[in-house]
């Protein structure tokens, strides 16, 4: 295992990156930049639109990692639905054009702490899990729909089902919360 990792690291030096690796890095930088603008801009709707750029950049990264299915689902769910829901909410509250100086909850330090902690945990886990694993771009596609489906439903069925139950519970909860009480009930 360690030998294989060493061999991989030797075969793919950091000093002579391929085109795909350069593209991956550049798209990553764009995604990071868009994400930073999303949380720092004072214009509410612009934040939502920059979020589209960040999520789209993430989808491109998935594509570069050959995970095509995940990439399109990312676009479908996040760009197509979540951001539309966000914009719907912003429009309902008549988000003004231009800056919203009062749109600051004053929680900036706490938010930064949580974000840095989450990022550190994720980076640590991912780096520790994959280290110097390289994707063989010339071989069979490792992230195709078929491979993803087989992995999901052979090795990860239990977490998948647990998530389904969790989502169902959230759905039922949302319906219960949104039902209006009648006048007399309390």
């Amino acid at each position: 295992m360690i030998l294989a990792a060493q061999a991989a690291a030797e075969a793919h030096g950091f000093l002579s990156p391929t085109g795909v690796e350069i593209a991956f890095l550049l798209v990553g930088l764009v995604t990071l930049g868009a994400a930073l603008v999303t949380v720092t801009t004072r214009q509410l709707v612009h934040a939502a639109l920059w979020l589209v750029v960040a999520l789209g950049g993430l989808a491109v990264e998935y594509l570069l990692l050959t995970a095509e299915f995940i990439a399109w689902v990312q676009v479908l769910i996040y760009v197509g639905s979540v951001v539309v829901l966000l914009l719907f909410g912003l429009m309902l509250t008549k988000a003004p054009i231009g800056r919203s100086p009062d749109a600051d909850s004053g929680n900036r330090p706490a938010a930064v702490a949580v974000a840095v902690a989450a990022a550190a945990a994720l980076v640590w886990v991912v780096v520790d899990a994959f280290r110097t694993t390289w994707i063989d771009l010339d071989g069979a596609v490792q992230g195709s729909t078929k491979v993803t489906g087989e992995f999901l439903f052979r090795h990860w069925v239990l977490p998948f089902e647990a998530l389904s139950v969790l989502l169902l519970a959230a759905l039922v909860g949302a319906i219960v919360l949104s039902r209006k009480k009648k006048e007399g009930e309390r």
Partner: protein
Amino acid sequence: MNDVLDVALRLLVVFAVFLVLPLVIGQTEHKVMAHMQGRLGPMYAGGFHGWAQLVADGVKFAQKEDVVPKDADRRVFQLAPAVALLPYLLVLVAIPIGPSEGAVGQVVDAGIFFVLAVMGVGVLGSLMAGWASANKFSLLGGLRTAAQLLAYELPMLLAAASVAMAAGTVSLPGILNAFEWWWLPWQIVGALVFFVAGLAELQRPPFDMPVADSEIIFGAYTEYTGLRFALFLLAEYAGIVVLCGLTTVLFLGGWHGPFGADGLGWVWTLLKTAVLAFVVIWLRVSYPRLREDQLQKLAWTTLVPLALAQIALTGIVKVAIQ
């Protein structure tokens, strides 16, 4: 070098289709609507039955001043038409029109997800336009667009998932390769759900309340003039091409036909797409506009259950024939 040429050629053909077919459908709409309403439609531009009317319209749009309202969010306002139009160009790349390898712009492994995801992005254009115009009618239009999307997206996805289950693949050419004629009655409910939900996505009558010109003055597009407005119109017609093409590929067997599927497959695809486009125009002339809440009711109490029933049926038949 040959590969590069091949890709360039394919993209060029897709681009040409993208430019020509929407205009053909627009002209057909002029004429079909006119005849259904007992008039002639455009007759003079170009000489023969007014065939050049849309070209003349394009020239007119290009000559108009491109106005951006003073209070509008300039950049978002100007970007919106491109966001509305470009996704349909991308979707066209993945739609196969014939049986051979060369009859599709690019084979996409997760084709269904690709087309539905990218079509969903187009709606962002209307939302951006609605918000950035700084106009209450536009904002209302944008709100209605978003509400509409939330209603139709689920049944559309479920109906498409049913076909993917039947074929055992999510790639569009793969689905066509697996197609048998008896899928037509088997998937007919899914086809209807998909087509109706698609009409709602395109904001075509009877689901045109986001643009409703007689109540909210074209909704999100109220403030647009000249070429940018023309781009939104073009997006609508390109959307019709894409929706009809997708329905053809997913539910009507694409290039399969009673005869001549080997050489003339693309004719069948185009023919079926054209018939569906005619139905889209026909519906515009024959049905009154629904209200937004009526669409929500239709989507959640009719389309979603029907799509779920279709998925159950697909599953049962699929297990039974194995």
